[in-house]
């Protein structure tokens, strides 16, 4: 199946959403993203890691080293309070954007 490009500016939103439920490592996030998007999105590590580092640096995520399912050393990312707030804001904005676009497309 052909993969879609992740729309500009939405990767952060998806990362934050994925991390709401539980802390995850980079590989886990990329797998979950692919799975949740029914295989339409595949995130490239060259985009994923810079995003993770930026979010961590800005205090939206907190990274901690831990052991993975099969006992590998991995860095787990956890949502911080400020990350949760940003998620809410971005989520609300995205909902409005999606609603607006859908309305336009259906009204036309």
């Amino acid at each position, binding site marked *: 199946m052909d993969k879609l490009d992740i729309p500009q500016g939405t990767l952060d939103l998806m990362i934050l959403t994925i991390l709401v439920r539980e802390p995850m490592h980079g590989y886990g996030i990329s797998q979950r993203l692919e799975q949740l998007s029914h295989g339409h999105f595949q995130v490239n*590590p*060259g985009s994923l890691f810079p*995003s993770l*580092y930026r979010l961590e640096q800005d205090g939206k995520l907190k990274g901690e080293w831990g052991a993975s399912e099969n006992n590998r050393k*991995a860095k787990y990312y956890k949502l911080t309070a400020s990350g949760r707030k940003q998620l809410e804001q971005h989520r609300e904005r995205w909902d409005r954007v999606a609603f607006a676009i859908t309305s336009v497309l259906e009204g036309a």
Partner: protein
Amino acid sequence: MTLLHRLRSVVHWIFHRSKAEQGLNDELQSFLDMSVADKIADGLSPSEARRLARVELGGLEQVKEHVRTERHGARLDEIGRDVRYALRLFFKNRAFTCTVVLTLALGIGANTAIFSLMDALMLRYLPVRNPQELQQVWLQSPGAKEPGGESFSYPIVRALGDQRDIFSGVAGFAGTSFDVGTPGSFNRVPGALVTGGYYSTLGLNPVVGRLLTDDDDRVGAPLSAVISYGYWQREFAGSHQAVGQTIRIKGNVVTIVGVTPRGFVGANVGAVADITMAIAALPQMYPTMAPLLGTGNVWLRVLARVNQGMSTDEATSRLNVMWSRLADSLINPGWPPSERKKIAESVFRLTPGGTGWSYLRERYRNPLYILMSAVSLVLLIACANVATLLLARASARHKEIAVRLAIGASRARVVRQLLIESTMLSLIGAGVGVAFARVLGSILVGLISTDLSSVNFDLTPNWHVLTFSSAAAIVTGILFGMAPAMQMTAVNPLVASKDESRTTAGSRSRLLPSLVVAQVALSLVLLAGAGLFVRTLNNLQSLDPGFRTEGVLLVELEDQRGLIPPTLVEELQRLPGVLSTTVSTHTPFNGWTWSEPVMPAGQPLPERDNAFVVAAGPRFLSTLQSQLVAGREFTDRDRRDGVPVALVNEAYAARYFPNGSGIGEHLSTNIAGYKDFEVVGVVRNAKLAGLRVAAPPTVYVAYYQLKSARATTISVRAAGSLARVSSAIQQTLQPKFPNTPIEVRGLSTQVANTIVRERMMAMLAGGFAVLALTLACVGLYGLLAYTVSRQTKEIGIRMALGAQASRVVASVVTGGTRLVTLGVLVGLPAVWIGSRSIESLLFGVTPLDAVTIAGAILVLLAAAQVAAYLPARRASRVDPLEALRHE
């Protein structure tokens, strides 16, 4: 996100960089491991899984680089790397680096030197409390657009100080010098005379002791002096015992009461006041100077502090209300009514005075602006030169940059790196330039300083100056770096990475020559300007002032009371080497003049002075070698018992005795108590007040007919060594006047002092023009040498086909001449604009003087021939075989 947070993460990144790098490594490795494990679980072979995982990751280093650029402070890191790389490059190309740094150091150094002088003279605040609150007080004549009167009489300053509802403080001051010491060993110390409110207005606190107050500024108060920090250190080694000690000034005992803070040397910018005394002390110290306390002498500059909360406008209007009330009592009753009326109708003005006052400002503002423009042009030429060097070197770096672009560096990134290199070069250049500016700055101050009025500036680089030179460095770095950087990165990596880098040089061949054209044009402007200043100086120096300046010594006795007795003059006359001796109240360009209303007998006296007056002794004309046109000069018989006689100069005679020589006519006036003079001679016009102005109508009266003392100068014409005669004069006079400092100086020095500004302009403009010319020639040489080296193959082929060496030389030189001619054409309009702005400083030459401009063009062409000859000769020695094998 807060700034603090951002800053913290930058700092964190700087200090924990290696740890962070390690973390990133581990994380990516674990990502890869998991990916591989999943793929194996999906049934791929381990090697296939690893390969696929790698492909999906898309290059470990690229991912890392992407992450790094997301980090705060990543920029900083990259810049740090660029800086290190640039330093390595500089070290590898030492000859190139030295050339560039030296070129820029000259350019930036010259700019810094001129700027630091401008800063010291015009921009720097006095080191006093809240200098920005200080206002300078002016009196503006009715109808005048600019405030003009900056000098006030002592009574007016006192009256201003009494206006407590306007000013919280008023300071009046004037520079002077004091002869400190015991008989026989005087030391002339620069000083200031101030009103009692001076220090409190400036808001200074003493280092030790106390400063002068209103109590010191009363006639009859004990003589007290405040000394500067520097004088305290030099003369008293900074001892606290200095306070209370006495010094002798002209036989008066003066008590030192305090020391001013370090850095403060008076409100007169450019002059140092080591000893400061109250004005009211004058009559006690020098009885002849008592009139300085009256309304007739306008000599004090005034700085004032307006009351807190009052606007300058309100202060000004209140001041003018006060003036309309008090003007009458404060204006000298002896002045003509029209003059009094004009002053009474003048209005006060306040202008920001935090930078103090200086007579130098008026005199050197324009010259400094002109010099600043000149050095900016020099810097532009230097920039063009460095840009040329960078471009010429570009071919060597072509491959490096092509590789950088090919492996994925963005163009912006490479441009930034090149700009960092050029900015670093200019910063290093600026560093060297600041040191060079120190030297040039003190030479400059030495040029405008004369033995009569020494000029002192603290030229230690301060933050103004350092900011200026770093700004200049950064701007120039970008200026000369930008074009080469854009050009070097505008390449197709595929083409450039192949060996044939020369094929991409097409567009460069336009930029390089245009830089040289620009340099030539700018040099032409500087050369023409320098030519005009040099001719101005020449015109002034070769001007016939109406007397002969060489071979005359001027002798002044400080505090001379009464007329100089004829016996004393005769005694000097007998000294070996002395040809002729005389006395007079004025000597040419001595800095002050005497004027009076003088009319032919029978005509009413005008209200305003219409003639300069000089009281001169016997042999005055022969001593100065001024020519007598008709009649006789003063003789020993022209004494008080004789008929009052006068000489007039040609200008006076021409105006007032148009029909006849004037000899035998009578003058009606009121000079020295005489109402009538008989004209006994006519003198050739001799300049008195300045070389630039024509000799004014002048009347000479006989010195020994004066009824009261006037400050007198003894003039001595001598043959042979003036120094020997000078010391003989000192030895003869000093025993007769043990308490009096005796000053002997040459008339030629006094004349030279009037053209200090012109000499400075000629020397500096000339120096900068030579610098510009040299730089432009180096630029031209660089371009031609580069062209020749690129055309080695072509030249080789031409020579193999039989071209003569002379033809090859000619073609290179012609190429150079064509560029210079183009530069001259571009430069001429700039000369036209530029020379107009210096018109007011010129003398005897028009701004568009054809000879000067043609001379400048010739100099340029000649210099260009020299610059072109070396590469041309190299071209002519190309060995065809060698050249064809070259590729």
